[in-house]
């Protein structure tokens, strides 16, 4: 590869890594902001602005961590980290992230990244390139425990909040004040998200720069990498993953301020405790577990187990699905070289545009929340087929009425 081709490849990978960071931002806005929006503690637009600022600040706080990325699920030393392989892996991660966003399913962006890279590594290095033991240790086991731990924490906290503030009938409980607490707790969750997730992109970009011979492994991360990763995750968060916010805030359980506060505190505590003690857990899985736990903690609250089941299936599909896309993408980049990489980029772009176009048919934005409000729970994301079915049913009803 000559120097101009290397520069083109590196530029493409950097652009794709930043786009992954952007999708990571809007995919994960719900982790911190779904419950304050659902309870009305913050207006939807205000919530995403706060989350975006917190993610931006968080990205700047934790630059030291970005020097290494947690990808020991791949035997990187064995196959080497080529820019084309990373490109293929990122394509897998992005396409899976967008698919789950379209379906309104909160899934782990980290697992999507690992999955994409694992698939690409398989094409470049075969079975030896994948560390299956680490996949079980770092992905599967935490995926089993993360929602459970957060769920128990949120269930206990919600129960305590309701017991402590309970009063005899017709006496005001003052539970609306939990909304004030929610503003702080959700901001803390957004900040911790920024410190964790923006580093992944910084790590990937640094890895590509080193692989492309544009930086030494010992050199500090360039400021433009930190700035661009921080801006990408901040912008992604600001654009708001409204579909996932709707699922997390309204689709899983009926959330009230005390539950929202307990849920966010449980999410924040679990993420911080796991990071501090070196047992990394997925923010998305922790946040989803907390919402379910808070739903169980209030007497009379409903948990929609059907939706919860769909989300869990999404979690377990994330790694293999992103790996398959990464693998297909890597087949192109490996087989056709730079031409394959450009072809790969075009195909990925077409699919991304197609997903965004399809999402416009069933558009969900901040206004959807203003219209629906907290009362209208249970309206989860509908597929185009469900929308057609509902429209047909409504038309039939009108016709019957005319007769």
């Amino acid at each position: 590869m000559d120097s101009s081709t290397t520069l083109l490849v590196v530029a493409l990978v950097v652009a794709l890594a930043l786009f992954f960071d952007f999708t990571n931002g809007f995919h994960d806005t719900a982790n911190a902001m779904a419950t304050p929006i659902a309870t009305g503690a913050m207006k939807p637009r205000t919530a995403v602005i706060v989350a975006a600022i917190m993610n931006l600040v968080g990205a700047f706080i934790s630059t030291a961590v970005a020097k290494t990325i947690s990808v020991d699920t791949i035997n990187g030393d064995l196959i080497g980290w080529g820019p084309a392989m990373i490109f293929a892996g990122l394509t897998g991660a992005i396409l899976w992230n967008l698919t789950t966003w379209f379906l309104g399913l909160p899934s782990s962006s980290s697992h999507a990244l690992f999955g994409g890279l694992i698939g690409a590594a398989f094409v470049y290095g075969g079975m030896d390139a994948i560390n299956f033991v680490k996949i079980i240790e770092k992905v599967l086991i935490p995926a089993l425990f993360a929602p459970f731990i957060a769920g128990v924490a949120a269930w206990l906290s919600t129960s305590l909040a309701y017991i402590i503030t309970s009063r005899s009938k017709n006496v005001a409980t003052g539970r609306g004040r939990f909304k004030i607490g929610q503003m702080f707790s959700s901001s803390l969750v957004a900040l911790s998200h920024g410190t964790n997730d923006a580093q992944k992109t910084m790590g990937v970009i640094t890895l590509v720069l080193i692989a492309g011979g544009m930086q030494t492994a010992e050199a500090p991360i360039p400021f433009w990498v930190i700035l661009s990763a921080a801006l990408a995750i901040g912008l992604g968060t600001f654009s708001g993953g409204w579909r996932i916010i709707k699922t997390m805030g309204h689709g899983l359980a009926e959330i009230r301020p005390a539950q929202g506060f307990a849920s966010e505190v449980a999410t924040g505590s679990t993420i911080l405790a796991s990071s501090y003690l070196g047992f990394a857990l997925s923010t998305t899985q922790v946040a989803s577990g907390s919402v379910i736990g808070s739903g169980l903690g209030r007497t009379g609250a409903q948990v929609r187990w059907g939706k919860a089941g769909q989300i869990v299936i999404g979690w377990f599909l994330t790694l293999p699905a992103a790996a398959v896309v990464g693998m297909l993408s890597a087949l192109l980049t490996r087989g056709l070289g730079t031409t394959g990489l450009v072809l790969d980029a075009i195909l990925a772009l077409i699919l991304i545009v197609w997903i965004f176009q399809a999402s416009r048919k069933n558009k969900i934005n901040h206004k959807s929340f203003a219209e629906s409000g907290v009362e209208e729970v249970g309206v989860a994301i509908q597929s185009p087929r469900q929308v057609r079915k509902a429209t047909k049913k409504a038309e039939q009803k009108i016709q019957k009425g005319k007769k």
Partner: protein
Amino acid sequence: MIEIKWNDLILVAGTAIGVSAFIVTFFAIGIRLLANAQHLAIAGKGKKKKDHFVAQVAYRLSAALSFLVSSSVMLYGLYIIVTFSKAVPK
């Protein structure tokens, strides 16, 4: 060979459950005390106005203390985010 750090996992679970219960409990106590103060303010319009005022102040001060305890633990979380993420590479 799969190595699961069970002790760490139990510690994470214990810490997360304990800390979140602690923060929410103190915040809820604060809310309860504030509600008590409000009920007294509504009820205390008759002869016991002075007694009610003293009780109200006590309730409000205790509520503030509860919120302070709760927010201190949350601020400690912020401190952990800032210091820990700077110090330990993953």
